[in-house]
């Protein structure tokens, strides 16, 4: 076990280095310059552009730039081209904005998909099952941004409730409770939008998994020996059906860093996804690379945790 841990961690570390080198190369080799040295600004002279390029080390060989980036990242000196702010701190602030969105969306996905999926599997072919299937496919096929616009228009024009941004204007002096509820309300719609696709997909998985398990011999045996139906379904069948979902738990982690570009953009949510997107548009290399690096770390950690969880849950699997 220890042996596996050490070897596996080492492999992931090597992979991380390779990923970061490749990301660095791709970002730098792609056409386009940071907007700070964009020569289309007629006010700027060639000397000034050259001075800014030199300050950002844009003309150094690419491997030196990589080493410099890594060194600055480690020492905390890494600054955004765009506004001179420390990159790690900037990403940190956005992380705390994106986190509640991610948590609520995840909560919605996991709490809503399981009952829907299980119910649909147990009453296979019923009206509920068929309408759940239709809804799921509809949600998978309709682009998220389209639904989001419809929901926002409904909320703003019909209900009259503010849904854009993280909070309502002019509530700065209101009670803490109201402010908290206000934040929660502003979370609801973007989190729901973020969750819809997930619910549709995951409930289909649950249904399929459940159907497979319910058909197994040991379930029939349990029912035949006169066990309570709920006990059979939720005690015996569900436990086995759950196994594959344990892996998904670890794989969800990268979503934490990636955020959601589309929904953060539409809902004016100052999260990581938007930070990364805007950094790409402005060719803000330090920010792009650092977000990418953190995403790589989290992805590798997520798969690592998945492996561990799976081994812990399924006695047939042993890590060696």
């Amino acid at each position, binding site marked *: 076990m220890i042996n596996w841990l050490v070897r596996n961690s080492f492999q992931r570390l090597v992979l991380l280095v390779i990923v970061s080198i490749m990301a660095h190369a791709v970002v730098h080799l792609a*056409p386009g310059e940071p907007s*700070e040295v964009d020569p289309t600004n007629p*006010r700027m002279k060639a000397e000034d552009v050259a001075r800014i390029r030199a300050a950002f080390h844009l003309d150094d060989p690419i491997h030196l730039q990589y080493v410099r980036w890594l060194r600055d990242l480690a020492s905390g000196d890494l600054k955004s081209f765009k506004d001179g702010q420390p990159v790690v701190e900037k990403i940190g602030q956005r992380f705390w904005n994106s986190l509640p969105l991610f948590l609520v969306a995840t909560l919605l996905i996991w*709490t809503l998909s399981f009952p829907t999926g299980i119910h649909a599997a147990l009453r296979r072919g019923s009206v509920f099952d068929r309408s759940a299937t239709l809804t799921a496919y509809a949600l998978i096929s309709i682009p998220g941004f389209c639904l989001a*616009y419809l929901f926002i228009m409904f909320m*703003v024009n019909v209900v009259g*409730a503010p849904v854009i941004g993280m909070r309502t204007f002019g509530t700065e002096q209101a009670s803490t409770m109201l402010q908290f509820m206000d934040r929660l309300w502003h979370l*609801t719609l973007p989190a729901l939008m973020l969750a819809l696709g997930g619910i549709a997909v995951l409930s289909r998985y649950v249904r399929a998994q459940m159907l497979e398990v319910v058909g197994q011999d040991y379930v029939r045996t349990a029912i035949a020996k006169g066990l309570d139906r709920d006990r059979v379904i939720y005690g015996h069948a569900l436990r086995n059906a759950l196994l594959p979902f344990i892996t998904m738990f670890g794989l969800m982690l990268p979503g934490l860093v990636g955020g959601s570009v589309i929904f953060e953009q539409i809902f004016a949510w100052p999260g990581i996804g*938007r930070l990364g997107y805007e950094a790409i548009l402005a060719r803000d290399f330090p920010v792009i690379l650092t977000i990418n690096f953190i995403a790589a770390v989290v992805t590798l950690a997520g798969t690592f945790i998945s492996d561990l969880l799976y081994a812990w849950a399924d006695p047939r699997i042993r890590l060696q």
Partner: protein
Amino acid sequence: MRRLFLFAPALVVLALVQAYFWVPTYDDQLRRNNARAGTYIEGSIGDAKFLNPILNSDTASSRITDLVFEGLLKLDEEWKLAPALARSYQVSEVAYLGLPEGVEPDTYVDTVRAAIAKSEADWVENVVQVRLTDPGRREVQATFENTENKTETRAVDLQLPPRLEFTLRRVDQDLAARLEALLGQHFPTRWEPHSFGQWPDEVSESARREQALAAVPLLEHNPVIEFRLRDGVRFHDGHVLDASDVRFTYDAIMEPNNLSPRRADFEPIASVQVLGPLHVRVTYKRLYAPALYSWTMGILPEHLLGVATRDEGGMRDAPFNRAPVGTGPMRFVEWRGDELITLEGFPGHWQGRPELERFMFRVLPDLLTQELEFAAGALDSYVPQPHQVERFAADERFMNFTANRPGYSYIAYNQRKAPFDDPRVRRALGMAIDVEEIVRYVLHGEGDRVSGPFPPGTPWTDPDFAPLRYDPEAARQLLAEAGFQPDPDGWLARDGKRLEFNLITNNGNPVRKAIMTIAQQAWADIGVKANTQVFEWAVFLKDFVNPGAFDALILGWRLGVDPDMYQLWHSSQTGFAKLNFTGYEDAHTDRLLERIRREYDRDRLASLTRELHRQIARNQPYTFLFARRVTYAMDRKWRMVEADGGLVPVRAARSGELFYHMRHWRKVGSGAAFSARTGQ
């Protein structure tokens, strides 16, 4: 277990839905919130970067810094320079003339003085004083290629002999010519400043001459601006503004570590002298009239930033850039990254407390959400897209303001290549396109035709000069004159070569794509074959525009208020990645551009720019298309408080600048009575 599967989702959904009942509706926000009435909320696609006027060059940041900071000068309602933090300013000139070889300096001064005293020319009254300077020294940067083929720069000291110093009341760019006419044979003919210093051996004789002459010409113009500052102007923290803050702001821009994008505007300055607590003198190295405009830039507080600049290697990462302190009418309150910037009225402003209590700048990256928030009352203004303008204009809740955007769109032709080197061809291609139609159908009427290099609405354009008319028949004739005849397939050809070329533009701009299709069709109608292609912006610049490797392209310029177009049209600016990328070269244009840069008198400047406008339009290096309009829809409840306390509807400045009077804005409650004075 089964219950858990039912309760958990129910609980989550319930918790989220109940939050709705705590949230104030849009109506509540408007009615029950007094603070909302005094607040102007604006939406923006992007967030600000640096709230420091010397570090930013983007629209979002300048929107904020324009309210928080003030310059010595400002642009008034007609885009003329007017005093702001400066009580008054005066532009004069000191000029230096090298002496002819072998003359006795003292006698030469007398000769010149006598000639001036005798002269009856009207320019002579401009001369205040003529005297002889002491010998001086001047440092010149010698650049050369060293043995490793790298460009190296070394300082060279020139020991200048005594020169004649002319003190002038007003700047006179023609002084050299006037003196030459006046002095005749006494006017110096030889001037070789490079002989006054020791140069590195690597620098060739001709390079020495050129570099020394650039720094010390025979007649050296030193324009001087003297600013008298207003008394008792305070920064938002109570500190009093004085002349050393002006000097500090200049130093901060020139400090290399600050990487200020505005450095080029201040580079022609020779010195900024503090002559008294409220008295600053700025001396320039050469004639450069656009420099005046650069003094509209905000003045920084030395007492807050001095340490960062001197001891901490520049102010780029100073906390000040996210919590600025200026002298402007609005004071900084809060900045929540990518979300909101809040400003409030500064009660201690030298013009008195602004009417506008609060200004909020919300970052809403999506246009549709901006529109919805505006319609719901959570934004006070919105810029409708061209196709929406009509709908917003018809809505009684809003008022509309329309102005020209400072810039225009064009089709540019690469004049290094045949057949675009022939002005008749460029003119014919322009005449084949119905620009009115583009404005009407692509821009939904939200644009105006442009006749030349200065967009409409500025004082620099010639309003009587008609744009190129749409006349495909005349276009065909012009092309026939240029030697193009239809080939068997109906396409125009000359010497067996078809008039066929590539028209390109950048991706992501639907208007340009539409123009491309329309132009292609219009040209096909007169027998010209254009192939079209769209490229990603970075590739478009790198592979086509910068190296000048294209036939024709569609682009646009965004222009400032100053009329200096040297970089866009001068024949010296046609190199790699320079802005005259079409390779346009015209001697008369060059002369006008040089004169415009050196002209400090606004009326003379306007006649020069109008001539330039006509000259470039005659040559048609571009097909000038249109200047887009921008329309603001604004909540009708906004009023403006007049000097006498009367309320009138919000009005834009005569220049079209909507926010010019913003500090006087106030929002009235629904149904609030208007003042009797306006009767609206």
